[in-house]
């Protein structure tokens, strides 16, 4: 009997429910897609190192908590909207003598029906959307999509069901409180009263608005002065003042402006401007909290999208980069070496039965230890500041003998170099080294390396690395062969170039070798730190953090913008049905259809614009403050802006059409 009543209710108020249902489905779809990330094969293909997976899942957990809050808010909001519309219906049930217990059972049943349907629809939609996201991401990361599979993540389905189960339980609880708290008279009159018209003190509004602007200004100026160097206290102040300022801004904004615009009679008393302004004023006043939240979400959206596109630019740049070698491997000569011949990479490879194919060209080399740090070596040629800089940064450094270096050059297809007995040659990508070298050539002093005086042959350092780069800058000294005789060995290594005709097989072989090293497969056999990387692995590793940034940036950006635009649309549509009487009154006193439509347009436009405009200002300040971190280019700005404009603009226009239809169909 009651289940029938509940079902009929859902059927009858289909229009209201359809908005609620769509919101739920959207939220579930987003939640599922987000949580299925880890199982997406694009990500699987990319994350071969453990750090990546670990970072990724920490980040996902953190972000999914945040996303949960955002979506929870969205659902409670939508439910609130639905209950508000039905207060009168509930009041009538009570006045007819139905017990509150029965009514709450009806509500619970309704929530269950809607909840179940939306869960199924949302997950199905999520499965489709997440495949789409995978394709888009793969595209963005320039990853190959050869092994694309249709992925259904059971883990994500489970998580989604549990999470939304909890949210629905909260919704039920919330609804129970609503029916038990409200008096019958309030329920019955709920429909009659639109939102309360609050009369606010004009002086207080102006004051609050000024306070809001001041808070924002303080927050901006702190961030602009300190930027990335801001410490934790400063950052908290920025966040606190920014958040509080945003809240107060929306709290006082419309009252402040209506005070000012009312003074301008010529504008205020034109067409139905006063109606439009009052409508907006009312809406913003009742919804200032969600406006502030939306504005902050949009701020995150724009920032995330912006950074994502920016980082994508960096990834693309990296992909352009070329290397002389396809593989570099090395073995460190520290520790207790039981058998010195195996501490050499050539001996080691032989010992584990690793062989080079005929198609693979290779060269072995040895590196020797410096007896001083780079800043000590160049001490006469560096300013204090530069020394400090070198001391703090990490610079990879060693000594290589001439014959090894020449064989590396030969492998890379370059001409060998010559050195006199007392000459050395410098290879480095460091700007400080370049400066110091120029300084050296100004004077007559010899250069002392491991206790021997040399003259440096090259006027500026060669910037090409002798292997696939490890982390940080590098500095190599090439010395005549006999000079290394008494030096301490640092490491031995090799470089490989594949046969161009068939690189895949070699790539597979070497990447497998290094994965074995990483997993310490041979460590029982010989406890030495062996490592290396193929060029492809190097690029993947270098791009991994960037890839996370791009993917999450895009994804979170999309979630936030969709959520906030959905809330704005909901508010506008619900407002349209609440304001139907007003529009009818307008029509009765002779306001033209055209004026009414333009009023709706203006209202919707301003309502969508308000949170976005503040968000854009926040973003502009934020991005400007950290501009050194980003290499901002025109295309980045354009792509990000375009994406936001299309999604947000689409929501705006759909809302406008929806409101217009509601008003037009009312008679």
């Amino acid at each position, binding site marked *: 009997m009651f289940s029938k009543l509940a079902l009929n209710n859902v059927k009858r108020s289909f229009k209201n429910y359809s908005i609620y249902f769509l919101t739920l489905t959207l939220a579930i779809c987003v939640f599922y897609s987000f949580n299925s990330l880890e199982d997406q094969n694009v990500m699987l293909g990319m994350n071969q190192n453990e750090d990546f997976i670990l970072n990724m899942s920490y980040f996902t957990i953190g972000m999914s908590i945040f996303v949960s809050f955002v979506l929870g808010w969205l659902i409670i909001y939508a439910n609130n909207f639905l209950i508000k519309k039905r207060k009168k219906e509930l009041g009538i049930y009570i006045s007819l003598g139905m017990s509150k217990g029965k009514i709450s059972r009806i509500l619970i049943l309704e929530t269950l029906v809607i909840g179940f349907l939306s869960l199924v629809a949302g997950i199905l939609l999520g499965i489709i959307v997440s495949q789409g996201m995978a394709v888009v991401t793969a595209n963005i990361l320039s990853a190959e999509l050869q092994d694309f599979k249709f992925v259904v993540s059971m883990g994500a389905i489970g998580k989604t069901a549990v999470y939304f189960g909890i949210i629905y339980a909260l919704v039920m609880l919330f609804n129970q409180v609503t029916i038990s708290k409200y008096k019958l008279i309030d329920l019955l009159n709920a429909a009659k009263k639109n939102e309360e018209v609050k009369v606010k003190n004009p002086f207080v509004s102006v004051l609050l608005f000024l306070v809001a602007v001041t808070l924002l200004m303080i927050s901006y100026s702190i961030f602009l002065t300190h930027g990335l160097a801001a410490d934790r206290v400063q950052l908290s102040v920025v966040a606190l003042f920014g958040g509080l300022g945003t809240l107060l801004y929306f709290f006082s904004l419309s009252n402040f402006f209506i005070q000012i615009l009312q003074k301008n*009679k010529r504008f205020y008393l034109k067409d139905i401007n006063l*109606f439009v302004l009052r409508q907006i004023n*009312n809406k913003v006043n009742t919804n200032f909290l969600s406006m502030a939240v939306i504005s902050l979400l949009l701020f995150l959206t724009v920032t995330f999208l912006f950074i994502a596109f920016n980082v994508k630019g960096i990834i693309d740049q990296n992909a352009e980069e070329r290397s002389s070698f396809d593989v570099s491997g090395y073995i460190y000569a520290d520790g207790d070496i039981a058998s010195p011949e195996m501490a050499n990479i050539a001996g080691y490879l032989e010992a584990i039965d690793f062989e080079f194919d005929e198609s693979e060209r290779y060269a072995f080399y040895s590196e020797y230890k410096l007896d001083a740090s780079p800043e000590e070596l160049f001490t006469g040629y560096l300013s204090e500041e530069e020394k400090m800089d070198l001391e703090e940064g990490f610079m990879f450094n060693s000594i290589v003998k001439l014959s090894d270096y020449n064989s590396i050059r030969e492998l890379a297809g370059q001409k060998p170099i010559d050195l006199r007995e007392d000459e050395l040659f410098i290879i480095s990508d460091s700007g400080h080294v370049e400066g110091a070298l120029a300084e050296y050539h100004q004077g007559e002093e010899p250069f002392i390396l491991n206790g021997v005086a040399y003259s440096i042959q090259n006027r500026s350092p060669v910037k090409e690395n002798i292997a696939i780069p490890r982390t940080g800058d590098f500095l190599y000294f090439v010395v005549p062969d006999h000079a290394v005789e008494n030096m301490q060995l640092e490491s031995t290594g090799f470089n490989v170039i594949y046969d161009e005709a068939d690189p895949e097989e070699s790539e597979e072989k070497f990447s497998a070798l290094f994965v074995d090293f990483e997993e310490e497969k041979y460590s029982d056999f010989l406890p030495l730190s062996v490592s290396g990387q193929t060029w492809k692995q190097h690029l993947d590793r270098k791009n991994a953090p960037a890839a996370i940034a791009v993917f999450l940036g895009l994804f979170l950006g999309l979630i936030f913008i969709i959520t906030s635009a959905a809330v704005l649309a909901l508010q506008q549509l619900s407002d349209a049905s609440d304001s139907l009487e007003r529009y009818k009154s*307008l029509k*009765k*006193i002779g306001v*033209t259809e055209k004026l009414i439509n333009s009023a709706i347009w203006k209202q919707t436009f301003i309502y969508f614009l308000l949170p976005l405009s503040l968000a854009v200002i926040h973003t502009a300040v934020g991005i400007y403050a950290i501009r050194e971190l980003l290499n901002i280019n025109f295309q980045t700005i354009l792509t990000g802006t375009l994406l936001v404009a299309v999604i947000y603009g689409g929501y705006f226009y759909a809302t406008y059409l929806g409101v217009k239809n509601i008003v037009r169909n009312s008679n």
Partner: protein
Amino acid sequence: MQNILTVDKIEKYYGNKGNVTKAIDNISFSVNKGEFLGIMGPSGSGKTTLLNCISTVDSITTGKITINEKDITKLKAKSLEKFRRDELGFIFQDFNLLDMLTAYENIALALTIQKRGAKEIDRLINEVAAKLGIEAILSQYPFQLSGGQKQRVACARAMVTEPSLILADEPTGALDSTSSRLLLDSFEKLNQEDQSTIIMVTHDSFTASYTNRILFIKDGRVFNELVRGNDTRKEFFNKIIEVVTLLGGDVSNVL
């Protein structure tokens, strides 16, 4: 006398097949420019429906309504809007004030949509407010006003544009006798000095005695007609009472 309104054999049905209410059942009459016409009748007799049809808020089922020689049943949407905006002032039984606008703004709206200048708007509102004694409440919102105050604001909104035809649905329904008199005096002034035509629905015989002529309606038909001619208001009032008593039955309950 110039004819301003002709209502010709109009009918208005509500509902659909099987369940039809004949709210108006073949009513014809005409109104001359400068007339002050009253419409009386028991509750549910079709008075509001009649006014709504004349004011183009509602459409008629059959018949013809001509205002200023224009057949308003055939007017296009554009001209309808213009007609409502410029020629008509409507005082609704349920006021139709906008809840988020102050009294001042509610009245102003009728003028802003006519694209009047800001100064003129201010002047006109102050004038009409003085006439109806609502200067003190201009800055308040409808929810802060009593029923009678709301009614006077609604009247001010209808009168402020100085329309050629004012339609008033129970304008004194929520007023005490002093404010009723205030309002009716200003109607009378409007009618006599500005030659405005007024059609007013009322239950109250005293209010009705301010008019020149009264149509009595029952069950959607014209039941009787009373012309004031050269009677004083007192004499006219007595005649009205007679007809109302004559109508008897349910009417006396209402009055």
